[in-house]
């Protein structure tokens, strides 16, 4: 019996991905556990392991195919003793429904039809590419009541059918799985004016309109990778759904810089003289933000339509720039971790982020984030909130400035930070309390060590 290898879902919310690369050829022998292909998801490249044994009889979806829906057959494995060539030839005809590379430039998706309350029966739910999304009646009702878009939910029922448990899991997973605004349903490469208009949002210019501004041949078109598309989708979503406001303060860094030197001087060294840790200013900032969130618990929240999620720990995301984009790994429960632990975790994250090897659970979620452009001499900027966070702290450069102290000019090292805040979740005074707590911790950094 031949076995279909299906496009795996690498995270609970993954609906499609790019089949980046096959690591096995047709005819190769495969053992359970062999890495057979690489798949590029939203922000990471993941390896697909074989579950079954046999011979890779047929590759259905070739290298480089984008927007391969979860559970699409991507290859056929023949079990021992099966006629590989028969499967291979049969296989070519069978998966007519499977996307081919040409399908990557498919037309914009129709908006997900969310049945209106008075409709006698649920309207059919339309998915990307116009295919029917199979779901149970109960799943459709729960999704409607929870305000979820079924197209954003991965089904775990028979043949990938969306069932009650999938919708419940999506609701439990929090707002990132919530009904994305209409543009999110469309591939970023092909904006869908219809769907955006349907959601009552401003519509950007179409690709054709934009291209007309530039003479043909005066530019080259670089196709978006899935990270670029995700960044575009998520940030448009953030700016269109989150009412941002911004609070800026200056923090004196001198005490922190002095403490950092002392802390690093105490790091135990191994036999090669390499210290066990080297804490950076950014590590202090992560820890400071985490503690500030715990000190001002009303600001350590996430907005949902139904309720405010008040978090028990501060999970702090840290924006890491990587070639072609950025990613925000999360330091979980940063409030409970030592500076050295945070420092070492960040080094590991940064290294793996550059190889796009982070796992979805390492960069999804979180309650707030830090974005630091200080090393580029940026004095001050405003960051875009990354849902489900309620805040993000933008860090400027630490620099010596002349300030007025006790009525006289004095020189101090200052760092300007700006907190972007989701006004639905955190009001002005609360935001001021949070950034005030942060400033106090940075200026009295011993408090972070105890």
């Amino acid at each position, binding site marked *: *019996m031949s076995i279909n290898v299906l496009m795996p879902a690498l995270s609970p919310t993954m609906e499609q991905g790019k089949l980046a690369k096959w690591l096995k050829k047709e005819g190769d022998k495969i053992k359970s556990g062999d890495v057979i292909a690489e798949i590029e998801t939203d922000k990471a490249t993941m390896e697909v392991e074989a579950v*079954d044994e046999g011979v890779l009889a047929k590759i259905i979806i070739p290298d480089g195919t984008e927007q391969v829906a979860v559970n699409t057959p991507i290859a056929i494995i023949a079990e021992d003793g099966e006629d590989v060539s028969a499967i291979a030839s049969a296989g070519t005809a069978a998966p007519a429904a499977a996307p081919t590379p040409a399908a990557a430039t498919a037309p914009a998706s129709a908006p997900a039809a969310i049945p209106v309350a008075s409709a006698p*029966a649920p309207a059919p739910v339309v998915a990307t590419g116009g295919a029917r999304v199979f779901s*149970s*009646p*109960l799943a459709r*009702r*729960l999704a409607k009541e929870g305000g979820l878009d079924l197209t954003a939910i991965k089904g775990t029922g028979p043949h990938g059918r969306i069932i*009650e448990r999938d919708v419940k899991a999506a609701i439990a997973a929090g707002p990132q799985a919530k009904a994305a605004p209409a543009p999110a349903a469309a591939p970023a490469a092909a904006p869908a004016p219809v769907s955006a208009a349907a959601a009552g949002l401003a519509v950007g210019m179409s690709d054709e309109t934009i291209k007309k501004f530039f003479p043909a041949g005066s530019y080259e078109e670089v196709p978006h990778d899935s990270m670029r598309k995700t960044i575009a989708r998520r940030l448009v979503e953030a700016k269109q759904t989150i009412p941002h406001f911004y609070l800026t303060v200056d923090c004196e860094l001198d005490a922190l810089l002095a403490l950092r030197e002392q802390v690093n001087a105490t790091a135990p060294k191994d036999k090669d003289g390499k210290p066990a840790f080297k804490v950076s200013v950014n590590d202090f900032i992560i820890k400071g933000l985490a503690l500030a969130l715990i000190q001002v618990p009303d600001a350590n929240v996430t907005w949902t339509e139904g309720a405010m999620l008040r978090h028990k720990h501060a999970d702090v995301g840290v924006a890491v720039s990587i070639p072609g984009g950025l990613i925000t790994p999360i330091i979980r429960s940063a409030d409970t971790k030592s500076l050295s632990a945070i420092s070492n975790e960040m080094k590991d994250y940064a290294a793996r982020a550059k190889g796009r090897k982070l796992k979805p659970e390492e960069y999804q979620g979180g309650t707030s984030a830090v974005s630091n452009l200080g090393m580029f001499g940026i004095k001050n900027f405003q960051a875009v909130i990354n849902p489900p966070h309620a805040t993000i702290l933008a860090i400027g450069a630490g620099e010596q400035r002349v300030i007025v102290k006790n009525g006289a000019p004095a020189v101090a090292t200052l760092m300007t930070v700006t907190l972007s805040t989701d006004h639905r979740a955190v009001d002005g005074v609360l935001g001021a309390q949070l950034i005030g707590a942060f400033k106090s911790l940075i200026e009295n950094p011993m408090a972070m060590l105890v």
Partner: protein
Amino acid sequence: MAAAYDVLIIGGGPGGYVTAIRSAQLGFKTAVVEREHLGGICLNWGCIPTKALLRSAEIYHYLQHPKDYGLIVEGKIGVDPAAVVKRSRGVSAQLNGGVGFLLKKNKVDVIWGEATITKVGEVSVTATKKSIMQPQNPVPKGILGEGTYQAKHIVVATGARPRILPGIEPDGKNIWTYFEAMVPESFPKSLIVMGSGAIGIEFASFYHTMGAEVTVVEVLPQIMPVEDPEIAGLARKQFEKQGIKIRTGTKVTKVEKTASGLTATLEDSKGATSTLSAEKLISAVGVTGNIENIGLEKLGVKTERGIVVVDGFGRTNVAGIYAIGDVAGPPMLAHKAEHEGVICVEAIKGLHPHPMDKSMIPGCTYCQPQVASVGLTEEKAKAAGYEIKVGRFPFVGNGKAIALGEPDGLIKTIFDAKTGKLIGAHMIGAEVTELIQGFVIAMNLETTEEELIHTVFPHPTLSEMMHESVLDAYGRVIHM
């Protein structure tokens, strides 16, 4: 050293043989070890032969009431107990042979004898020591015998046996279990049935129809304790109307043999005692898993209160050893065992089946009137914190029921008021054991009231009452 199997199943009951066939379909080299009879208790001493007995009772009942249907039956109407039992044994024999055929067809080896797991991956089979219940069908041809067998995966499907109350041990003469009650030499004139679960109630119903004076003694305050209280209450009313005596909240504390049979001492919930004499007593106080003498203790397989502890895929705490069916815990029903077996071997194959969902296992009792149910009772739904909508529709409002002369019965549906999810269905009345599956499918497909309301039910059928019950839950009932 004999052949090495991928999957070896200990026990050829409904769980075991279905597991074996599915295993063979998946391409595994498969064997079943059976010590007594293919098809197990279900086929030889349980579900199937009792249905044959109850069919005789049902027809006898109709023959006694010909005028209800405008018919005249003249002459003597009687019962030939030996022929009734013979028919029942014949039905079992036919199906027993059928199981042997199916196993052979699927190239499953049958090993005859008693199995002990000597270590992970190895089973030793010795000749059957258990005294065999008679009558038995002949041992199938082409079987393997005593020896040591290797198997990568060993599935324990040894089933269950009647639970015995100390002091009221069955003697096979006056105190019966279902074994003796299935093959009586003559039908008793009076009978005490201890326990009112499916087994007890079915025998009470059968022997009552066959002319015995029957008293059912149940220790709990409700007969058919797993059923919805409203349904159980209606069943009790029907039984009492027919003439079956029912003593709930009462236990049998002592049984003494007398010249004409036995005298049982009963004690009610207030502590008052009384005595009751009868020719026979059937002990039907539940079943207990067969976990002994198969090597589980030595291997450290975790058991708890007489059953093997497993996960949703039948896996025990010891890798390579699995358990399914009655021996893996309640509900102890053949169809649950079959499904668990299928899930178990599919998981071994790596097919990622979904774990057993025990909230959607239907239960059927073939007394007169029949009782069938799936999901939560009204009480349990409330206790689980559901805000519920309950629909009811009585048989008296259904054209087909009236035409059949079966106006007594009720179909009850329970929905989660918040989501419209069907969380329970409970039925009493003619043919409800054939109706319940409609709701079981609905639950498995996660239908809400909306789809059930939009479904067209054929007229005239009893199934229309299922529709009406759903309509009633949402204040839209038509024929009431």
